C-alpha cells in the first residue's frame, strides 16, 4: 500500500486556492452581482420551462450571432468565476449556465470542434461502418448483442417477472424472438417502435433466464443501433433521447456526473412532495450543513470538477464514441425539427414533455 492516499477532504483544503480558508464572509450564498444584471435582462440564462416564445426567438437570434469561439469563451469565463463562501470557493454561475439553451448550443459547437481536433478513434470508425451495414450484422458483431444471446427457447421467464411488462405494452420474449429470427424488416420495424424504449434496464430478466441470455443487454444494444441508424425519431419514446443526450450528456460533458443536484427542480418534480420543495429552495445551505460541496471545489456531491479531470474524461468519451453518438442524435433531431417547422430548442422541449 503506498502512502499517497488522502483522507476525505470535507473542507476542500487540498484544493488549489484553498490554502487560506477561514475568510468565510457571510453565511449567505454569494450573489453573482456581476451576472445578475445580465441574468435579469437576458433570457438565455432562464430554465426552459420559464421561456416564452418571444424569449426563444431572442435567444436563438443571439446564439446564432455568436461565433464558436465567442460562445465557448463566454461560457468558461462565466463558469470559472468564483466567490468565497463558507470556507471555500463557490462557483455561482454553474447554476445559471446549466440546462439552458446557451449551454446546449455551446456543447453542440464545442463537441464538433473536439471531433474535428481529435479525429476518428477506432471505436468511431467501427460505429460508422456499422451504420451502413444491415441490422443483422450489428446483432452478430456488436459486443453487447453478442454477449446477450446464446439461444433463446422462448420460455417467457423474462416476461413473466419483467416489471415493465406488467405496466406497459412490452414483451421481452417477443423482442428476443424477433432478434433471433434475423429478419431485417422485422428488426427495422422494432427499432422504429416505442417497444424497445419501455425496458427499465433492471436486469431481472438476466437472473431468471434458464439459458443465461441477457434480454436487457440485448435491448440496450438495440437502442444503440436504433440511434446509430436514426430510427429512434420514429417513436415518441425513442426521440426522447434528444432530451436525454442533453440531460445526461450535458451533465457529463460539463460536470462529470450524469446527474447534477440542481436537476431535481421543483417545477418538474411535483411528485416529490412539499418537503422536497422546502429542501430544494435552500439546497446549498443544507448540502453544506452536512459537509457536501454544492458547486464548490471539493470531492463530495455536486462539486466543481477539476478542469484536468474533466479534460481527461472528455478525451475518453470522444475516443469511446459518445461524441459520435451525440452528434448523430443531434443531426436526427435537427432534421426532424426542420421537417416539423420548429426550432431545435422547441424540439428539445417537445420531446421532453410529450408521451
Amino acid at each position, binding site marked *: 500500500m503506498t502512502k499517497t492516499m488522502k483522507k476525505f477532504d*470535507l473542507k476542500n483544503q487540498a484544493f*488549489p486556492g484553498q490554502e487560506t480558508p477561514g475568510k468565510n464572509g457571510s453565511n449567505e450564498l454569494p450573489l453573482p452581482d456581476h451576472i445578475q444584471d445580465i441574468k435579469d435582462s437576458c433570457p438565455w440564462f432562464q430554465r426552459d420551462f420559464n421561456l416564452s416564445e418571444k424569449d426563444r426567438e431572442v435567444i436563438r437570434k443571439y446564439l446564432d450571432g455568436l461565433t464558436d469561439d465567442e460562445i465557448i469563451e463566454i461560457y468558461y469565463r462565466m463558469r470559472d468565476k468564483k466567490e468565497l463562501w463558507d470556507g471555500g470557493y463557490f462557483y455561482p454561475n454553474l447554476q445559471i449556465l446549466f440546462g439552458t439553451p446557451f449551454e446546449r448550443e455551446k456543447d453542440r459547437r464545442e463537441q464538433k470542434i473536439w471531433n474535428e481536433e481529435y479525429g476518428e478513434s477506432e471505436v468511431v470508425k467501427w460505429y460508422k461502418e456499422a451504420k451502413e451495414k444491415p441490422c443483422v450484422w450489428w446483432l452478430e458483431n456488436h459486443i453487447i448483442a453478442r454477449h446477450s444471446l446464446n439461444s433463446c427457447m422462448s420460455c417467457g421467464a423474462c416476461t413473466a417477472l419483467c*416489471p415493465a411488462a406488467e405496466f406497459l405494452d412490452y414483451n421481452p420474449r417477443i423482442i428476443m424472438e424477433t432478434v433471433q429470427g434475423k429478419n431485417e424488416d422485422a428488426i427495422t420495424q422494432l427499432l422504429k417502435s416505442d417497444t424497445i424504449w419501455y425496458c427499465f434496464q433492471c436486469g*431481472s430478466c438476466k437472473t431468471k433466464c434458464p439459458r443465461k441470455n441477457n434480454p436487457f443487454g440485448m435491448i*440496450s444494444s438495440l437502442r444503440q443501433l436504433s440511434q446509430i441508424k436514426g430510427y429512434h425519431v420514429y417513436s415518441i419514446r425513442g426521440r426522447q433521447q434528444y432530451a436525454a443526450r442533453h440531460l*445526461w450528456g450535458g451533465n457529463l460533458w460539463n460536470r462529470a456526473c450524469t446527474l447534477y443536484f440542481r436537476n431535481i427542480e421543483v417545477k418538474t418534480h411535483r411528485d416529490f412532495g412539499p418537503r422536497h420543495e422546502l429542501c430544494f429552495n435552500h439546497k446549498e445551505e443544507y448540502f453544506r*450543513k452536512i459537509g457536501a460541496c454544492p458547486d464548490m471545489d471539493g470531492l463530495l456531491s455536486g462539486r466543481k470538477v477539476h478542469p484536468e479531470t474533466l479534460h481527461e*474524461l472528455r478525451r475518453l468519451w470522444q475516443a*469511446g464514441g459518445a461524441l459520435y453518438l451525440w452528434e448523430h442524435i443531434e443531426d436526427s433531431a435537427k432534421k426532424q425539427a426542420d421537417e416539423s417547422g420548429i426550432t431545435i430548442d422547441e424540439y428539445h422541449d417537445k420531446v421532453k414533455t410529450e408521451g
Partner: protein
Amino acid sequence: MKENNSLFSETGRESLWKRYIKDIPDDGYFLTLSCILGALYPGSEAMIPKVYDLFGLNWGTNPRPESGWSCCSGIAYHGDIMPIEGTLLTVARLWSIAQEIGVDTITMSCVTSFGIHCECRDLYENEPGLKEKIDRLLKQSCGREFEIPKYILHTSDVFYHYRNQLRDNFMKFQLIDKKTGTPLNVVDHVGCHYSKLFPEEHSLGGSEYCEVLSGMATAWGGKEIDYPERRHCCGMGFRQCMISPNRAGTMASVHKKMKSMSPFQPDLIITNCPGCQVFLDKEQWAIYEITGKKYFIPVLTYQEVAGILMGWDPYGVVGIQFHTVPVEPLLDKIGTPYNPSEAWLGINKRQVY
C-alpha cells in the same frame, strides 16, 4: 444414530451459501461516489468516509486534486447515450486511479456503478482482445494504464462486513421499539444491479436471499420482514424516471411494492441503491396525491440507519430533512433524541424559513 429430519443438511447449506459469499478485504479501499446519492441524499454520501474513518481505514478518492473520481457513466450507458466503449474507458480510468493510489479494492456508493464495474470485468473476462483495445485507447487518450482490480465491492458490502463491530463499538441505539422492547419490522430493498446481474459472483446471498441489507438490519436489532414483492424492481428505470412523461411506470412499481409490504406493518425500508432510495421515498407522496393512501413508510439508506443508531445529528450529519417521508416518527420509536425546531435551519443554525 440421530435421525436428521431437516430438509437440507447443515453441510449442504454451508456449501450452498459459499456460492453466494465473497471476500471482503478489511482495508485499503478506493472510494467512488454516486451522482444520484450526492444529488438527493448528500448526508448518506458524507457518512461513508465518516464510517471508514471510525475504523481508521486506509482509503482514498484521489491521489491528486486533478486526478479526481468521476461518475462511472452508468446512467448514461443504461440511458443509452453512452456506447459501451465510453463506459469501459470511464471505468478503466477509475481503476487506473485506484492503481495510482495503490489499492486493488474498489468500493462504490452507487448500485448502478457497482453493476457497471462488474459488467466491465465480466466483459474483459469473456471477450478476447478487449483489454488490449481499452488499454490502447486509454493510453492514447490520457496516458493512463490500468489493471482489473481484484475486488469490486459496494459500500454496503463494507458496512455489512463491519456490521457487528459498528454495533458493538459505536451504536448507542438499536432497531428496537423503545416503548415495547420489540424489534422493529425492517423491509429491505436491494438494488437490482447489486443482486440480479451477477448474483453468484458479486451479491452477498445471491438474488433470492440477498443478505447484504437484512444482515445489517438484524445485526442492529431489527426483524427481517419478507413480503411477496420483495424482489420487485423499484421502477427507477433510468429513462423511465428521469424523463418526466415516463415516470408513471416508476410510480406504478413503487405502488405495487407498497401495497404488497404494507400488511406486514414495516417500520422502515432500508436500501442500498441510490435510485431505489429516491423513488421508494419520493413517490410515496405521488401515490398519496393520486390515491389518497398514506403509506408514508420511512425509507433510509443503510448509512442513514447506521448514523441514526450511532446517535449522529439527524439534521446536521444524517440529513433526514432531505426525505419526502418524514423520518422523525422512526426516531421516536428508536428513542433517538432530536430537536425538530432544527430541521430547517441552515449553516451555523441560521434561520432560513
